[in-house]
């Protein structure tokens, strides 16, 4: 066991730290589209340094780096308060899926513009009637010569208004057993048959969208992983969502915890034993999140798959992140009646944490069935 960085890892960390210090773009601008363009410019700078696709193969514009280096990059970006990269869904989910299941032409076509943020990606999985039960989705794709014609509705589509490509799962064989009749497409968002409507959430913001698809056309060559094979390809995307984002999410928890500590002091509540107990508990849980994330990296690099702790990260993160926003609300007391400042918004936003990317209940089912081997309901 060695929880310290190896000499090459330390060297990499120092290089990242120095580079971020020299290239930090400063605070993010106000306004959704200004912020998005700011993050796009930042991603381009990171990509020119070669780090946007740190763990991707070099032939597709990646750096062939290790998972630990990826973790170091996340930690240093968070430590420096540098912005996230714009094309997060392409980087964390779409790219890895194309690398795993795409053809050679697809890799060459789609991967470099993900890294350069020239083509933004979004995800078309959930539907109004298909949330946790994703395999019941109804969006239909019908073959028409060399093309597929798609009709249906998707929901919770982050960045749809900025996106060029949508990872779209649609039903191509309504007669097949429900997991077998699905196909994974890359759909061009720039067509009239795709309408994007912002979906206003409980914070009053619209991070997500609804997609209304009415006869959109997708060339046959944009199927990833083969016709009728959409389910395992979609699972790959979801696994990357949970594993790849888990590390970045735990880093953001460490930062939020430091802010909470400072806000507790500023609110004059640092002597309250109940506040101290809850803070101490959250701190320990945040350390567990961090440690499990590192244990997961070791397991993946040694055995090719995360160990039992890998299934727990997203669920545990949701609990910890919700818990710290709840403590912040209690600490601030009556001041939260005025809904400005960072905590009221974060508290509301955190309600989604145990739903988005797999509900806590579904994740517990997965742990119970696949890790503990309990019988299916």
């Amino acid at each position: 066991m060695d929880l310290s960085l190896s000499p090459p890892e330390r060297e990499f960390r120092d290089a990242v730290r120095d580079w971020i210090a020299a290239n930090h773009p400063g605070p993010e601008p106000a306004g959704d589209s200004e912020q998005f363009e700011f993050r796009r410019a930042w991603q381009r700078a990171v990509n020119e340094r070669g780090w946007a696709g740190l763990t991707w193969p070099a032939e597709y514009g990646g750096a062939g780096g290790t998972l630990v280096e990826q973790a170091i990059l996340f930690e240093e970006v968070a430590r420096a308060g540098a912005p996230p990269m714009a094309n997060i869904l392409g980087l964390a989910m779409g790219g890895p899926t194309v690398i795993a299941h795409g053809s050679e032409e697809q890799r060459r076509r789609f991967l470099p513009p993900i890294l350069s943020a020239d083509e933004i990606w979004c995800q078309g999985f959930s539907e109004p009637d298909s949330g946790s039960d994703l395999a019941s989705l109804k969006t239909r794709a019908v073959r028409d010569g060399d093309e597929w014609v798609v009709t249906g509705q998707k929901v919770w589509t982050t960045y749809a208004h900025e996106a060029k490509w949508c990872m779209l799962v649609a039903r191509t064989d309504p007669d097949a057993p429900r997991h077998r009749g699905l196909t994974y497409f890359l759909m061009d968002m720039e067509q009239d048959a795709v309408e994007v409507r912002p979906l206003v959430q409980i914070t009053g913001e619209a991070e997500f969208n609804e997609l209304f698809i009415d006869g959109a056309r997708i060339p046959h060559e944009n199927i990833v992983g083969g016709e009728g094979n959409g389910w395992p390809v979609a699972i790959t995307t979801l696994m990357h969502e949970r594993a790849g984002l888990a590390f970045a999410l735990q880093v953001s928890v460490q930062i939020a915890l430091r802010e909470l500590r400072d806000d507790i002091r500023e609110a004059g509540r640092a002597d309250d034993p109940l506040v101290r107990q809850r803070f101490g508990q959250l701190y320990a849980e945040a350390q567990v999140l961090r440690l499990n994330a590192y244990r997961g990296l070791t397991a993946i690099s040694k055995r090719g798959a995360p160990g039992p702790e890998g299934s727990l990260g997203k669920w545990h993160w949701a609990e910890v992140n919700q818990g710290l926003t709840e403590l912040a609300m209690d600490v601030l007391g009556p001041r939260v009646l005025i809904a400005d400042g960072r905590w009221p918004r974060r508290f509301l936003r955190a309600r989604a944490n145990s739903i988005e990317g797999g509900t806590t209940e579904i994740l517990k089912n997965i742990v119970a069935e696949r890790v503990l081997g309990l019988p299916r309901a």
Partner: protein
Amino acid sequence: MNFDLSEDQRTIKSTARELLAARYPLAEVRRLALDDERGFTDAQWEEMVALGWPEIAELGTVEMIVVAEELGYALAPTPLQSTWVAGLLGADVSGGRRGAVVMDGMAADAGSADVLVDWDGAEVSGASVEPARGLDPTRRMFLISAPPAPRSPLGADVERARLQATVMNAAESVGVAERAMGLAVEYAKERKQFGRAIGTYQAVSHACAQMLLEVEGARSAVYWAAWALDHEPEAAPLAAACAKAYAGDAGRRVPRSALQVHGGIGFTWEHDLHFFLKRGEANAHAYGSGAAHREQIAALAGL
């Protein structure tokens, strides 16, 4: 970065798992706990001495906690943990000598100890040692009345020894929790009600998933703290507080939940689950409560 046991550490773990499983089947744990006056046999102790376990901390804190976790998993009644802590606090526990540590006027395993030390790392002599009925029958408890005479320190690094002892106890709770979880999961697969295995009900399966979250989280925290004690001493106080707060809670919450999964049978004296429940509960109050360690975390984190 390698968050995994080394080859040698893994060998220690598997050796301990196999040996303890062979020597301490639950029937033997029950016999020692309920019917054996000392709570362990000479043969069991001598075998541990022959393996070098009483002085395993010399190899490293990680090596010690690997064995501690397995002792918790097997729920092996033994004075080994008391002897470890006495040794860390400066007592001479070489050559098969056994130690015990006086804390809060009590000492586990004091009746069979060759040397008594206090939590400040000083030898205690001339004390009266009265057996008492412990909450946890797998560990012999004694009430100690020691004379108020000034005690001379044995010269150990007491701060470090206390942290090592605390993390060792947390590691034991990881093993206790893991075993209780295993019993619950097996039972949930076999026990049928309303015509199907109770593990198919989410109220039960989600409780089991929660156990895994706590067991694996506790293990991560304990490994971190043990590693920090050996390699990053400046992080050790915070890491040890996190480990004890989290693993101490897991060590009692998981057996409680496991008992609920078992239903009525888990409440019977005949079933073995209560031994794990009692050890986990006892550990949560030893070496500082969860509340005390959470307070320590807050202080060390700058609150």
